[in-house]
C-alpha cells in the first residue's frame, strides 16, 4: 500500500493505537499537529518524518479537521475501520469529557459579572489567535497579488454579502483552481 516507508512491518496493537491518540488528544493545546508529530514520529517511531509530512498533506486535501483525519488514516492503515474508530475515540473522547465538564463549571458561575467579563476577555484573545492562525495558514499565496485579492473577495462575500460558504467555495474556489493551474497562486 505504501511503498516509501520502511517500518510498515511493525503494527501497533489496538490498545497502543488508542493510547497514542489519547495522548495526542490530551496534550494538544491550540493545534494538535505538532503533538501528532512528536508522539507518532519521535516517541513511538511509527512513521518516518517524511511519511508524516506526506500523510498530513493528503489529510489536508480531504474535508475534515486535519488531526481527526490523521487519526482515521493511521487507524485504518493498521487495523481497518475498527482501528479508525479506535483512533478517533482516542483523540476525541477524553478531551470532549474535559471540555463538557469545563463547560458545566463555566455555566455554574456564568451569572457572576466577573465570569462574564473574564469570558469576554478570553474570547477576545482567543479570536485574535484564530486570526493569527488564519494568517499563518495562508502560505505562499500571500506573495501573489491575485491570491490576496481572491482571499479578500472570499472574506467580503461571506461577511458583507452573507454568501453561504458552499457558494463562496464554489465560485471563488473555481477561480482559485484556474489561477493555480496557470501558476498564478
Amino acid at each position: 500500500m505504501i511503498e516509501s516507508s520502511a517500518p510498515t512491518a511493525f503494527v501497533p496493537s489496538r490498545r497502543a493505537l488508542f493510547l497514542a491518540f489519547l495522548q495526542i488528544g490530551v496534550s494538544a493545546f491550540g493545534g494538535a499537529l505538532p503533538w501528532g508529530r512528536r508522539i507518532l514520529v519521535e516517541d513511538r517511531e511509527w512513521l518516518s518524518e517524511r511519511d508524516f509530512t506526506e500523510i498530513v498533506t493528503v489529510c489536508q486535501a480531504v474535508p475534515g479537521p486535519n488531526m481527526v483525519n490523521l487519526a482515521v488514516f493511521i487507524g485504518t492503515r493498521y487495523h481497518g475501520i475498527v482501528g479508525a474508530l479506535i483512533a478517533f475515540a482516542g483523540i476525541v473522547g477524553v478531551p470532549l469529557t474535559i471540555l463538557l465538564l469545563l463547560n458545566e463549571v463555566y455555566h455554574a458561575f456564568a451569572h457572576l459579572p466577573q465570569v462574564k467579563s473574564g469570558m469576554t476577555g478570553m474570547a477576545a484573545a482567543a479570536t485574535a489567535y484564530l486570526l493569527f492562525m488564519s494568517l499563518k495558514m495562508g502560505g505562499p499565496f500571500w506573495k501573489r497579488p491575485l491570491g490576496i485579492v481572491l482571499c479578500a473577495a472570499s472574506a467580503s462575500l461571506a461577511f458583507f454579502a452573507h454568501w453561504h460558504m458552499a457558494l463562496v467555495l464554489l465560485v471563488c474556489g473555481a477561480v482559485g483552481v484556474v489561477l493555480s493551474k496557470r501558476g498564478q497562486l
Partner: protein
Amino acid sequence: MKGSDQLVDMALLYMSLSFLCIGGTIPLIPDMHRFFVDTRGLMTTTEFAGYIALAQVAPGPNILYIALFGYHVAGIAGALTALGAISFVPFVLMVIVTKMFARLQANPWREIVLRGLAPVTVGLMFAGCMLLFRGMPDWRAWVLAAVAFFVFMFTKLHPLWMIGVGALTGVVLGM
C-alpha cells in the same frame, strides 16, 4: 420548535457543511453563526465566541467547540449529534483515501487544487473572525484583541498564556 427537530436540523447542517471543511472547521464559522445566532436565535454572538474560546483553552482537536454548540442546544445528545454529524463524511472519505493513498500522492491535481483553495479558506476564516469581533460587547475588547494579535505575531509566547491574560484583563476591567 421541538428539541428533536432542532437536533435533526443541526445534524443536517453539519452533515452538509462537513463536505466543505477543507483545512479544518474554522472556515465554517460564518455558516454556523448564521444558523445558531442569526436564523435560529439559539445563542448570542458572545456565547458563540465564548464556546470557541472555551474549546481553545481545553485540550483536544479544535473541532470540539462544535460539540459545545450542540450541547447548548440539546445537552449530551446535542453534543454527540453535532460531533457525529460533522465527523461522519470525513471519516468515510478518509477510510477510502487511506486505501488509495499511493495514487493520490502521485496525482499532480492534489497540489493544484490545494493551492487554489487556500486563499478562499483563509478568506472564510477571516470572515468568521470579523463576525466574532463585530459581536464583542465593548471597545476595550477590540483593543485587547489587537494587543493579543501582536503578541501572537511577534513573540513566541505560548497562546494559552495570552488567552489567560485576556481573561484576567476582562475581569480587572469589568468588560
